[in-house]
């Protein structure tokens, strides 16, 4: 069972109280963008074994969206953080580096 701490209300919410929102930090390409960029935005997703960044929603609780950094192979959770950021905060990246030196995810490391 995955347990994530909602950064908005502080509840340690188990997976059944949350709704998954897919990959984090997608950049939207809409009208006016190239077909290639639009295709990438719609369909291209990471599928890592290891460090991953996701969006989750505390849907049965306070209702807020947030971000989570976790490992897909061990279910270890590195941390959760605000939805109002384009990249994982430094503090979260440091926690990941401490446990998984040399990690990479898209253009992050």
């Amino acid at each position, binding site marked *: 069972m995955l347990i994530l701490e909602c950064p*908005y*209300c*502080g*509840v340690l*919410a*188990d997976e*059944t*109280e949350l709704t998954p929102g897919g990959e984090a930090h997608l950049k939207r390409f809409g009208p006016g963008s190239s077909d290639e960029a639009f295709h990438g935005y719609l369909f291209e997703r990471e599928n890592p074994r290891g460090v991953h960044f996701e969006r989750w929603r505390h849907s*049965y*609780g*306070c*209702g*807020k969206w947030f971000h989570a950094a976790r490992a897909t192979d061990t279910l270890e959770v590195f941390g959760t953080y605000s939805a109002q950021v384009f990249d994982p905060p430094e503090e979260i990246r440091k926690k990941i580096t401490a446990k998984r030196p040399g990690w990479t995810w898209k253009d992050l490391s």
Partner: protein
Amino acid sequence: MSKVISVLNQARFHGIADVTELGVQGMISLRGDLSSARLKTAARTATGATVPEPHRVTISDQGGLCWMAPDELLVLVPYAEVSTRLTKLQDALAKDHALAVDVSDARAVFQLGGPHAREVLAKLSPVDLSARAFTPGMLRRTRLAQVAAAFWMTQDEAFRIVCFRSVAQYVFDLLSIAAQDGSEVDAL
């Protein structure tokens, strides 16, 4: 004028815990900046209760306030006074980025009491309901089996449970089944 009755007309179940649908309760959903002085005053004027800390309720003899989210309160008032208190609340917050709506008829309220009340609820929601973790005055907004619900603990260690009116029968059945005789777990 016709008499107002609640969705399950105060249905009851008696088992290892007592389940009662409580009848009509005035409820106003209030969203806004909970740290704003104007909102705090308006909420207190409407209920006689002060804005609670996160995951808590405050109850007065005229109503109560439930902390539902960082920007949301559930305002409890007598059913007959919802419209007058709502108008006052809306007037007081007219200049703020805030929203107050009467949700009384969109919700159902249950009382769950008795020595096994904690474990009946623990069977249905992903919340630590041990006496160490959950104490009177605390509130959790969560789920009961497959539907959204909020509950808090009153001073006598009973629970008040609020859910959507459309799932009132489902929640009553859930609570009754979880409270049926002989179903003690004694794990808490």
